[in-house]
């Protein structure tokens, strides 16, 4: 059978970076093909070439056995290729519906297209349980739901080959399983799926074949059934990887963060954070688990001074900071913050890495006296952080947008952890980060805890929450449903995340 997609000898350089080095790949029709590899290995670049975003320097692309030129994403879509990007490509002020028909408006009046899309969305929602309010403004949706819109968009355009670049980064295991059921169904209907992910469990669970990339090269393609998690990890990183980081008992000290009855209402008056109370002490990691969109993002915003609490109090090191609303003062007092959404908040994509690496810390005395910003100091600081966190390429002058997703994340972590904070607020610390780097980041977080720092961790990865947290809070619909220890039963946590409370009291 002719393969659905064939890439032959694809080569792509970005200046000194050899992002794809003579890469060949063949993808069988109606199969799910996984691609794995470290951050910066060149996975997104390869897919961007297939989708017409980048032009390869050399190489050939065959679709259904025929050599084709893919000069733009329009070409790709016409060839039946759809893509869900690692970084969302959505128009924030538009509604879900408007985003879905984008590029498929068909005619001068969008009324008919909207009506058709509404019906189609309903069908997709019913069939795949991909529920999103079609009239919601995309920019106001939490990342988890934005992700769904991206998936809907690609499905709506009716692609034969669907490329998903790290689609499960923000989904809970349940949601991911759900997505995988969709993908399997698509495959059974004769469609082809290419799935890039850092989660080897997902690869093992649903792919038919898996290809491994390392430093721009394709190092292996395996039949999934004939390989193992450990083998893949080793192929990817080139050494054995610890899947679970060792961690000693916590020795909690005094309270650093004390949140009491916190409420935050959105513009419509709906409480998104609804009477939340908890404490974080020195030397412990408190994890907040929950399906994304249940108030975690808003909670972090209020604590870090970005949003104003409607009522309730936040005490930081004994001081009431509820009405302070000043992230820069909080930073100076020792509260660091790794935001959930790295593309929109964590860095400024049009700035150089060095400039992004001081975002929020630009007034540090170490970066120049009074008004002056010492460029060499800025670059030097970035260089150090890059070295410590193994950011690749280690080029402080490269534009932030040109780093691979995982490396952008490492840049942000390096900046915030590197500030040696008393309290670290961290949202989705390992989203899009490869397994080698996850191991490293988890070690750093535990090390920080063991140095007596307080850490508040929000993650939709239940595994991550369970392996890092000393106490786990579960949020649902803006409320804390309960507190559990790190050895809590996964099923029980899952129920809490769905808002079901077993009467334990």
């Amino acid at each position: 059978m002719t393969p659905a997609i064939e890439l032959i000898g694809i080569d792509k350089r970005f200046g000194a970076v050899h992002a794809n080095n003579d890469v060949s790949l063949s993808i069988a029709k109606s199969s799910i093909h996984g691609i794995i590899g470290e951050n910066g290995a060149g996975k997104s670049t390869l897919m961007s070439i297939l989708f017409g975003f980048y032009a390869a320097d050399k190489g050939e692309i065959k679709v259904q056995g025929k050599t084709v030129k893919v000069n733009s994403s329009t070409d790709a879509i016409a060839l039946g290729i759809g893509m869900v990007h690692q970084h969302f490509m959505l128009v924030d002020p538009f509604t879900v519906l408007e985003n879905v028909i984008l590029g498929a408006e068909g005619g001068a009046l969008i009324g008919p297209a909207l009506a058709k899309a509404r019906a189609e969305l309903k069908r997709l929602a019913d069939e795949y349980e991909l529920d999103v309010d079609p009239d919601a403004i995309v920019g106001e949706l939490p990342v988890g739901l934005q992700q769904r819109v991206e998936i809907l968009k690609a499905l709506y355009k009716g692609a034969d080959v669907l490329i998903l670049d790290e689609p499960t980064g923000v989904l809970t295991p349940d949601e991911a399983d759900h997505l995988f059921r969709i993908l399997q169904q698509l495959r059974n209907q004769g469609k082809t799926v290419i799935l890039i992910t850092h989660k080897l469990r997902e690869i093992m669970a649903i792919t038919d074949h898996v290809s491994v990339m390392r430093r721009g090269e394709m190092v292996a393609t395996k039949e999934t059934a004939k390989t193992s998690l450990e083998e893949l990890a080793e192929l990817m990183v080139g050494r054995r990887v610890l899947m679970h980081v060792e961690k000693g008992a916590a020795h909690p000290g005094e309270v650093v963060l004390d949140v009491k009855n916190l409420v935050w209402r959105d513009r419509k008056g709906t409480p998104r954070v609804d009477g939340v109370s908890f404490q974080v002490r020195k030397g412990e990691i408190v994890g907040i688990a929950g399906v994304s969109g249940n108030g975690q993002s808003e909670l972090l915003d209020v604590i870090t001074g970005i949003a104003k609490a409607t009522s309730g109090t936040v005490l930081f090191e004994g001081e009431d900071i509820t009405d302070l609303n000043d992230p820069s003062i909080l930073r100076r007092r020792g509260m660091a913050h790794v935001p959930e959404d790295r593309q929109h908040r964590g860095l400024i994509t049009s700035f150089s890495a060095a400039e992004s690496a001081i975002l929020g810390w630009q007034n540090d005395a170490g970066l120049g006296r009074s008004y002056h910003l010492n460029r060499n100091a800025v670059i030097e600081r970035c260089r150090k952080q890059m070295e410590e966190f193994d950011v690749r390429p280690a080029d402080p002058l490269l534009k932030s947008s040109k780093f691979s997703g995982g490396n952008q994340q490492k840049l942000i972590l390096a900046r915030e952890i590197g500030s040696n904070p008393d309290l670290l607020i961290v949202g989705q610390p390992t989203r899009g980060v490869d397994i080698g780097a996850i191991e490293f980041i988890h070690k750093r977080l535990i090390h920080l805890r063991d140095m007596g720092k307080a850490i508040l961790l929000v993650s939709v990865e239940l595994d991550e929450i369970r392996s890092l947290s000393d106490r786990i809070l579960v949020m649902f619909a803006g409320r804390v449903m309960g507190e559990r220890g790190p050895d809590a039963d996964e099923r029980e946590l899952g129920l809490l995340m769905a808002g079901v409370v077993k009467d334990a009291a």
Partner: protein
Amino acid sequence: MSARGELPTWVDVGLIPLINLVLALLISGLVVVIIGENPFQALGIMLHGALGSLKGWSYMFYYATNFIFTGLAVAVAFHAGLFNIGGDGQAYVAGLGAATPGLILGGALAAILPAGISQPITLFVALMGSILFGAFWAFVPGYLQAKRGSHIVITTIMFNFIASSLMVYLINNVFRPITSMAVESKAINDAYILNFREIGRLIGMKLPSSPLNPVVFLAFIAAFIIWYLLWRTKLGYELRAVGANSEAAIYAGIKPSRIIMIAMAISGGLAGLVAFNEILGVQHRLLLDFVGGAGFVGIAVALMGRSHPLGIVLSALLFGLLYQGGTELSFAIQSISRDMIVVIQGLVILFMGALEDAFRPSLTALFFKVEE
């Protein structure tokens, strides 16, 4: 991620502006043909008019002085994500700050101090006055944007109109000597910037007559200061952060409303320097419409100069050339008026601003094809 990769920097900052300029000139050439004149002859006259004599060069730099100020004004606001269209009005109102010290303070100081001391003091006060009045006239729209959400484009346009009426009223009713027929203030002799011809005469050198004066150096210094501000200070960093991604800026603890007001004030202050140049270095009195549309040229200059001070200096010189050459052209060929320059300027704005992204994709495609 932009589609199909990104262009090398030299294409982005060099080639694209050049293509836009050439296209603007080509279309202007067509207009000349339609008028019934020879476009090559016209181009020749223009180039000769600006570059063929020391006098032409002097005028070119004189025009460029004002354009550097207004170009920088637009660029600073632009880096903060704001489109300041009010440069004209800001420069006009700054005329009050430029003229008043010379008219009031200058005489008083001259009475008690030797001219060598009283003049520099008065000039310095006038310099500050120009900056402050210009800054104020831009700060108000900035404030309205930051605190009330009134769109800066709308408010700065409205402030241009307010400035016009206000200045007509003030010049006619306050500054005009009662006995004078001309709607202008009395001559400002106590804060007088000699132009190069006058300076040359002092040291026995004969220079062609032109309004070019040492304020041109201030323009270059201002360009350097703005470059330094934007890329070497914490304030500049915060300003660019707000312009590039205000959500990330808020995360970083930067207050966009504060930055908006500061950026607008700096922008207006720069525009105000046009008044300093025109009133104290050229006209030596406060008069109607002394800005002469320099504020609007600043938009084209900033667009063409890619909002970078160096690019702005270069494109200001280019526009200086067009203005000087265009003036000569209108003398030489009666059927072509000086408004031809306005046409070219409009076309540059059209290509740089509105149509820039129209060429980019095909240029990028072409570029990669050539590379293959």
